[in-house]
C-alpha cells in the first residue's frame, strides 16, 4: 500500500474520531491532536486551542494540556496535520495549487497562536473560536440546522472566515496550515525532535526538485526536511525516484 493511501485511511479515521465522535459514548478526556471544534454536535474529543483559551481565562497552569501536547509533538510533530487533522484533510482535498511557500508569512501562524492566548487573557473570552473556520463548519452550520443557532452577526463572521479560508485553500494548497493555523504552529515547535520525521540521504539526492513539486506545503523537502512547516505527509518521499527522502519513525540522534 502506498503512503498516500495509508494517509487517506488515517485522515478518514481522524474525521471519524474528531468530527463524528466515533471513538466512544459521551465525552472523553482526550485532547485531539489537531484543529477541530469541540462544539461540533458529534465530537467527543476536545480542541487543544479551544481548551487552552479556556484555561487561560480561568488562570489555570495547563499541566494536563501541556503533557498531552508535548506527547503529540514528540510522537509526530506536524505529522498530525498531514495524517490526522480533519481541517487539514479539508485543506488536502482542495490542494490544487502547490505554490512555493512564503517563508516570512509562514511565521504568521505563530502570531495567530500568540494572539489567541493574549486575547483570551485580555478579553477573558475565547476570541479565536469566534472566527475559527473549523468552528464554522463543525458548529455554526450544524447548530443552525439543529435550531440552536440563527443567521446572526457571529454566524456571518464565521461564514466570512470560512469563505475566505476556502478561497485561500483553493488558490494556495494548505493555505490555512501554512500561514494561519495556531495548532500547526504549536506542533511545528516539535518538528525537529519528533519521532515521525523525514530523513535525507544526501548521497542519493541530486537536487532535481521532484520532491518540491509534490510538496503541498510548498517546501523544498531536500533542503527543508525538518522545517516547522513540514507536515510529514510523505508526498516527497513517495515522489523521489532515487529514494533520497524517506519517512521514518525514530528519535533524532543529531541536532
Amino acid at each position, binding site marked *: 500500500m502506498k503512503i498516500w493511501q495509508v494517509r487517506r485511511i488515517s485522515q478518514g479515521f481522524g474525521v471519524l474520531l474528531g468530527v463524528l*465522535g466515533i471513538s466512544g*459514548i*459521551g*465525552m*472523553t*478526556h482526550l*485532547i485531539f491532536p489537531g484543529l477541530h*471544534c*469541540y*462544539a461540533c*454536535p458529534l*465530537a*467527543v*474529543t*476536545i*480542541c487543544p486551542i*479551544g*481548551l487552552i483559551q*479556556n*484555561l487561560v*481565562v*480561568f488562570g*489555570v*497552569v*495547563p*499541566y*494536563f*494540556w*501541556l*503533557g*498531552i501536547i*508535548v*506527547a503529540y*509533538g*514528540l510522537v509526530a510533530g506536524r505529522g498530525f496535520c498531514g495524517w490526522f487533522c480533519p481541517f487539514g484533510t479539508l485543506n488536502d482535498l482542495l490542494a490544487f495549487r502547490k505554490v512555493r511557500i512564503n517563508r516570512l508569512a509562514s511565521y504568521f501562524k505563530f502570531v495567530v497562536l500568540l494572539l489567541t492566548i493574549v486575547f483570551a487573557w485580555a478579553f477573558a*473570552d*475565547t476570541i479565536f*473560536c*469566534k*472566527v*475559527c473556520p473549523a*468552528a464554522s463548519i463543525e*458548529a*455554526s452550520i450544524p*447548530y443552525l440546522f*439543529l435550531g*440552536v*443557532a*440563527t443567521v*446572526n*452577526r*457571529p*454566524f456571518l*463572521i464565521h461564514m466570512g472566515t470560512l469563505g475566505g479560508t476556502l478561497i485561500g485553500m483553493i488558490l494556495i494548497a494548505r493555505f490555512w496550515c501554512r500561514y494561519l493555523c495556531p495548532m500547526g504552529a504549536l506542533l511545528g515547535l516539535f518538528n525537529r*525532535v519528533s519521532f515521525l520525521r523525514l530523513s535525507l540521504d544526501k548521497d542519493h539526492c541530486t537536487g532535481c526538485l521532484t520532491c518540491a513539486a509534490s510538496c503541498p506545503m510548498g517546501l523544498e523537502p531536500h533542503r527543508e526536511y525538518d522545517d516547522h512547516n513540514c507536515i510529514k505527509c510523505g508526498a516527497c518521499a513517495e515522489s523521489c525516484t532515487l529514494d533520497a527522502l524517506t519517512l521514518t519513525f525514530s*528519535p*533524532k*540522534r*543529531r*541536532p
Partner: protein
Amino acid sequence: MIKRITGAHALAGLLLLLIALASTVCAQESILRFTFDPAEPTVEAGGTAAVALRVHNESVYEADDVAVYGVKEETGFSLQSTPVSLKQVSPFGEAELDLILFAPEELHNETVEVAVEVIYTYCVDDVCFQIVEELALNVHVAEEVLPPSSFKARPAVLRWLVPAFGVGLLAGGVFLWRLVGLTIPLYVVLLLFIGGGLAYGVVVLQHQQARSIGAVLCTSCVGIEEAQHERPLPSTEALTALAALRNYVQLIVFYAPWCHSCPFAEEMVEQLAAASDRLSWQLINVDAQREIALSHGVIRSGRTIVPAILRVDTGEVIFGVEQLEVRLLDLLGLGQ
C-alpha cells in the same frame, strides 16, 4: 321471597356491604417498592438536587400511571418529576422517575425528612385499586454543596514553582541540544513534561476540567451568538404581556459558571419572575448537575448547551440569549 324489609334484613344487608367493602380495602395492598438514589441527597438551601426514584414491581400485576403526587408542604420542599408519570410498570419490572428536589431558602445545615407522596393504580381482574404511598426521604441541607466537578485548589507555591522549574529544564535541554549537540537530555526533558504534566494534571483534576469544558457548549463561546454583557431590561410590552399569564409556570435556567451569556439569561428570567407572581424560576449549574440537564433535553448529542431555559410543565427548552425576551414570551405562551 322477601315481602317486606325487616330490621333483620337491613342489618344483614349492611353487614354484607361492610364485608364487601372490607374485602376491597384489604385487597388494596402495595405492590411496588420504592428506593431513592441517592438514598439521602444533599442540597443547598434554596438550591436543587437530582434524585432518582426507582420503582420495583414485586407482584404479578401491572402497575399503571405511577406518579409523584408531591411532598407534604410543611417542610417547604417541592418536587418536579420527569417523566410526569410512568404509564406502566410491568410485573416484576423496574422503572425510574427523575426528580428535581427544590429546597427552601430558610433551612441551614440540618437533615429534613421529606414525605414524598406517590400515587399509582393496579387492577386485579376487573377490580382496580388506586394506591397512595408516602415515602420518607432524608435530605441534608448544607450551606454549600461542592459540585462533583469542582477542581482542587492548587497550592500557591506550586502554582508558579512547577512551571518555572519546567521552563528551566526545557531551556537546559534546548541549550544542550542546539549548542552542545546532545539530543538525549532534550528527549528526557520532553518525557518529563509528558509524564509530569499528565500525572500532576490528573492529580489536580485537570482532565475532568478538560472534559467539563468539552462537554458543555456555551453558545457565545464558539460564536453561535454574541455574548451579552449588559444588564437586560424587559420591555413594557413584555411586562404587560406577563399580566395575561393564567397558569403558574416554573422555569429552570441551566448555566455554567464560565458561560459569558448565562448571567444575561438569569437576569432576564429573574426580572420577568419579579413582575409576575405566577412565574417562578430556579438555577441549575450543568457542571454540577449534568443529569438534570440530560433528563430535560438540555443536552444535544451528548453536549450540554448553555444558557438554556426550560419550562417545566411543558418540557420546552430555549437556548441562548438572542432575542431572549421575545422567545421567553413565546415559551410562556404569551407571544404575538
